[in-house]
């Protein structure tokens, strides 16, 4: 265990039970690094998780208070919690792509719409990997998974000019970024900015899954090969090539430009209580 882990994480959950070669640990570490860089302490953060690989592997790792929601609903729970926790408490959610962009998309959009102050890290292993590897809403076109044996041929949120971050931007999110897990310090920077935004922030972070995605689509569980495959398909925003799937960096930053959900509700309640009207 390194010093960061000692400070913030529970020894019982480190190392995690993730598959060998799983890239989730890099994402997780980037989040913890960003928290450290901001000078935040264990008690400053309530950590929520979803189900699936990303949710289950990160649940209960934070030394402080933590919760895991049912499939796709952690955003609604977090909104309820946001309304009653003191504003200085940060809420960080580590979730998966199926949870955020599939079953939970409605709740995610309403979190963006209301500009609820929490930071969502969507750890994208390119489909439903904890159930054995089925395609999801960001699985690259043509990818072979257990539920797309001929190649993924559905329209999805990352094809034909679609971008799930565009959906969230239009829904009212105030900070959006995208990275792959090998982005290192650049990803930490984005997460740090996301946490600093008093409003809805989401960082989409693609990470490699050797066990399912790698073995089905790339025909190998070789960690180096899948890491390289992801790296090749990622490029910083503005430097995209023809085969770029993930343009990395800050997609949209309107941090602290719009009134935060809980602040707005409490301001109105306080005024109604005092004056009987808004």
């Amino acid at each position, binding site marked *: 265990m390194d010093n960061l882990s000692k400070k913030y994480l529970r020894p019982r959950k480190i190392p995690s039970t993730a598959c060998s070669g799983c890239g989730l640990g890099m994402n997780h570490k980037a989040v913890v690094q960003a928290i450290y860089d901001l000078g935040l302490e264990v008690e400053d953060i309530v950590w929520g998780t979803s189900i699936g690989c990303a949710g289950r592997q990160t649940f209960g790792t934070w030394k402080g208070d933590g919760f895991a929601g049912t499939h796709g609903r952690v955003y609604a729970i977090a909104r309820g919690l946001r309304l009653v926790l003191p504003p200085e408490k940060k809420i960080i959610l580590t979730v998966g792509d199926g949870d955020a962009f599939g079953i939970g998309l409605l709740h995610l959009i309403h979190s963006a719409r209301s500009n609820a102050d929490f930071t969502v890290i969507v750890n994208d292993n390119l489909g439903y990997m904890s159930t054995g590897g089925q395609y999801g809403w960001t699985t690259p076109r043509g990818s072979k998974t257990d539920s797309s044996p001929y190649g993924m041929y559905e329209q999805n949120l990352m094809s034909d000019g679609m971008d799930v971050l565009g959906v969230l931007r239009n829904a009212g999110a105030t900070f959006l970024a995208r990275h792959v897990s090998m982005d290192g310090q650049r990803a930490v920077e984005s997460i740090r900015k996301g946490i600093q935004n008093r409003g809805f922030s989401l960082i989409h972070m693609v990470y490699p899954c050797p066990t399912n995605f790698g073995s089905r689509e790339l025909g190998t569980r070789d960690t180096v090969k899948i890491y390289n495959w992801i790296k090749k398909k990622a490029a910083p925003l503005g430097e995209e090539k023809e085969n770029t799937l993930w343009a990395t960096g800050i997609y949209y930053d309107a941090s602290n430009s719009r009134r935060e959900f809980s602040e707005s509700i409490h301001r109105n*309640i306080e005024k109604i209580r005092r004056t009987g009207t808004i």
Partner: protein
Amino acid sequence: MKRYLETGNFAITEGAILAGCRFFAGYPITPATELAEAMSSRLPQEGGIFIQGEDECAALHLCVGAALGGYKAMTATSGPGYILYADPYGWAIGSEIPVVILNSGRVGPVSGITGAPGQGEFYLTRYPTQGGNFETIVLAPNSAQEAMAMTVEAFYLSERFRTPVTVLADQLITDGFEDISVPESDGEMEEMGFRTWPRKINRGPEFYPAMDEIDVPPVVLGHNTGALCSDWTPTEEGYDIEQVQAHHKHAYRLIYKVRNHRSLFNHLYEKNFMDDDPDLVVVSYGTPSRVVNTAVKKARQSGLKVGAVRLINLWPFPDEHFRRKTKYLSVELNWDGQLVREVQRAAPKDSEVHFIGSCGDLPTVTDLIEAFERLLQGQSLARRGWELEEW
């Protein structure tokens, strides 16, 4: 004490506020919409939070989130919304989070008829989520005044048992007007039998003790207690675990904390003319029970030996009222018969258990007395517009 002519929705709102509810998340649905509207007007006046969810599933999750932050929270809906609670209801049962849910029954299945009363969720309130391995508490008032009292009681029980409690009402209760007395002081609340219980905070490290005790404070996040709560089977500290023995302990607690402490609420029933071992016992809950009470009283006046058991505590089902071998008649606001099945199960072998149902409209006193007479004479029940059918 202040008296009003008001709806059940008003009474439930005031009851919730008296019980300390300061968070309500709802979603518009007839006939519970006016309750959300009343909350939207009243809660901010009390410094409480009202919010609309993007759907009922979100609404209850919002409540559970607020409850996890230490608030007493409530939501309200009708059948088509209640079914969307399956996710958060199960989560709150498993994570032992106190929250109160009101269901105002209308005519189903699905959207059915919106503005008319029904009782189609007798079993759904027992099994509001999947997976089993839990016991639920359900209270069914039969008037607006009692709906207020049962809302207060639901908050009380939800805190002590740390579990969601459903108040099962119907459209006539929530939409109908009635004279309602609202207590204005703690003394008056006590006078009316209202019990309250404050939110306490579990300081750990055993957030999910493997025993059947009540009064274990619930998990509250944000106090840096290291509390964990999740949708997975928990260890006593709240870590997720996939192990049959750990699950057995968890399930034992979810089932027996309720079953072994029924004495806290199993006094919630009403009996009329039951002292002389009546030849026919009429069983009901909710608004139909008011017609039953009037009918039984009238039947007694004309010499029929009929008695009535009205259930307020519906679940866990109070078997103790059905120990005597006699004739039973279940009166319900549905055509399929739900309560009757539970009476059949609870009554001694070879008891005659009958059912008379209607939906969208209450049964009439005249119809009920005719049914009593037929049953007492050993005839079967005539179902209006339906073929003769035996239960």
